[in-house]
């Protein structure tokens, strides 16, 4: 029986070869024509080409999320300013005033906001990116496009908020007459790093959430604890030096340290092993995230 089927397959493939070898030759238009081959148990080779074809969708989905987010709100976009502002005030009060944490001679609000920039980006990115597949489930079960776009564009949406907060940071620096050091030129690298971390973690969580809705409860925990475990409200130099390496296992430590180093300069001395660990972790998270996402993506429509 099995043999018979094999022979059958061969006949089939033979037939196919005959039918589609012809059209390739005649014109350039034909050559450009998309041919799609889908085979059971094989990853699709055209995935990355599709991603390119649908590139505008990154923009459209992010645009949608931004448009929708502040509809029917009174103060609208101001929310992306109010949120970091209030968090900054609270954290400054708790850690700076009550906790009397060292500020290394910097205005405490500046220190806090500098840590909050990457942290808020990362935390909104993983909570919204993680939820993005499930909240777009109707789309996933009815239409095809690379699902990666949903998650990444939701991270891009958070990136927009990040830049709004960054503008606030600039205002605050002017207010405190604070001139950033030359290292500020390296800031884009750290933004890239936090973006990579967000996409990597977002992909993992989103893919897992499709199957295990438990992550709907886990992510808020990560976000809640992460705020205190990461050096958002304080400097990582307050961590005893023998624990520093261990502390740096949290990738947000390296990223936040990097942000402070770029924006606030020498006062916050950079801890290079921490940065190195962070870069390696982010790369691993990103690569495995993409691999895991790709391997489960094919069954999203069946599971969701």
């Amino acid at each position, binding site marked *: 029986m099995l043999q018979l*089927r094999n022979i*059958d*397959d061969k006949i*089939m*493939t033979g037939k*196919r070869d005959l*039918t*589609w070898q*012809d*059209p390739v030759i005649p014109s350039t238009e034909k050559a450009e*024509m*998309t*041919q*799609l*081959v*889908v*085979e*059971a*148990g094989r990853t699709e080779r055209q995935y990355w080409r599709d991603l390119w*074809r*649908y590139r*505008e*969708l990154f923009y*459209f*989905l992010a*645009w*949608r999320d931004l*448009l*929708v987010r502040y*509809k*029917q709100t009174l103060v609208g976009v101001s929310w992306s300013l109010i949120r970091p502002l209030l968090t900054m005030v609270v954290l400054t009060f708790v850690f700076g005033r009550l906790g009397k944490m060292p500020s290394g001679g910097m205005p405490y609000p500046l220190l806090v906001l500098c840590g909050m920039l990457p942290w808020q980006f990362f935390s909104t990115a993983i909570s919204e990116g993680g939820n993005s597949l499930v909240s777009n489930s*109707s*789309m*996933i*079960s*009815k*239409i*095809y*496009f690379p699902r990666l776009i949903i998650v990444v564009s939701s991270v891009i949406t958070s990136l927009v908020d990040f830049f709004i907060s960054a503008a606030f940071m600039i205002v605050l620096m002017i207010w405190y007459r604070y001139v950033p050091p030359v290292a500020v030129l390296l800031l884009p690298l750290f933004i890239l790093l936090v973006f990579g971390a967000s996409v990597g973690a977002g992909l993992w969580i989103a893919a*897992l959430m499709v*199957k*295990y809705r*438990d*992550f709907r409860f886990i992510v808020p925990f990560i976000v809640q604890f992460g705020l205190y475990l990461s050096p958002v409200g304080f400097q990582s130099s307050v961590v005893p030096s023998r624990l520093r390496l261990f502390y740096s296992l949290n990738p947000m430590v390296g990223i936040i340290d990097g942000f402070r180093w770029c924006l606030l300069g020498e006062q916050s001395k950079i801890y290079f092993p921490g940065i190195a660990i962070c870069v390696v972790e982010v790369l691993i998270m990103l690569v495995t995230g993409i691999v895991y996402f790709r391997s489960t993506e*094919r*069954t999203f*429509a*069946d599971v969701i």
Partner: protein
Amino acid sequence: MSESAISIQNIGKRYTIGQRKPGADGMRHALEGAMRTPIRWLKSRQQTKLKQVDIWALRGVSLEIKRGEVVGIIGANGAGKSTLLKLLSRITVPTEGRFVVNGRTASLLEVGTGFHQELTGRENIFLNGAILGMTRAEIMSKFDEIVEFSEIEDFLDTPVKRYSSGMYVRLAFAVAAHLEPEILIVDEVLAVGDAAFQNKCLGKMSTIAQSGRTVLFVSHNMEAVRNLCQRGIWIKDGKVYRDGNVEEVADEYFHSFAKEAVFFCSNPEYGLTIKNVVLKNDRGEASRQFRPGDDLIVEISYEAQKRITRPIIALGVLGINGSCFTANMLLDGHRPDYLMGTGRISCRFRGIPLLPQSYAIKMRVQGADVSELIVGYQDVAFFDVVGDLAEYGYVGEFTRFARYSTPVVVPYEWSLPDGTTASVALCRSVS
């Protein structure tokens, strides 16, 4: 033009359903099991896999669809039509087999996928277009056409959540209709919207079909399938059952119902079970064959475990080409006070004025509130009208084409120039 647009080879899709251990898919089970006793966990996973029930929604399907062909896919609910379309539109992947698609594909499995309630019509056109695979430039160039087709100019800047359902559907179809793909895959999307718009959509689809593009069209509307398609593919139990000229396949499909149907359905939520639906003639005998002008009695046996107050029952008689006539409590208001326990409801259609063709009876049951759908509108019984039309005033050699005509004929009378009159009536001769 004999080039292949879609070539499907021995494709199959398996779904695993039911009989899984409760919580087997929750993470607690997965994590806990894996951590405590990794080996036993692995074993137990293998065992649960064995216990799962595999359903092949589609298996061993091979099809060759040529460029420019317009194919209607028909079949009962759950036969695998939608699975086939989902595979071809790449929403899900096949479990076995392979297929090759030549050309840009657009699929429309649902009207308004990706529409966002909060966004305006204008914004949704762009968003939906992008989701369907159009570039921004393409959408821009088609924008006016889309708006014109959808007839919503005045509401372009209103959020779609304020749209009537008709406007919503019109806009959604308009976007999809302007995709201009080489291959268009359409699932039962015309079931929505009013008749005028449905016709407009069908018109648009036939334009697309005539422009040499390949169209795959799934519908329960046989008239639409016949009008639009040349080739019919009947999917039954996950396999290609018939494949050929659309008229023949659609005819055979329609006739097949009469043989197999014994209707039974149950809605646990409302505690209503429809035990069966029997058709009887005026002598009270169960029958599936009637003569023009006969009385047709539809007898519904039910069992209500819960009290159902003031239900609305609607019956419709449908021919191959669509609806003929109905008996609808929603309109006539003769609703029973309540249903409780077992009982029967019957409806007698007097002197059915139908030509000899095949017919289906559809039924819907709604609760006291119209929004409570207890039994969705569906086929419950089938019958044939048979008889010699010569007895009813039909003469001539073309009478045989009555098989394809509009089926309802009310009595009429011709007055001819020579002063003669001729009357035709599908009612039993008084003699």
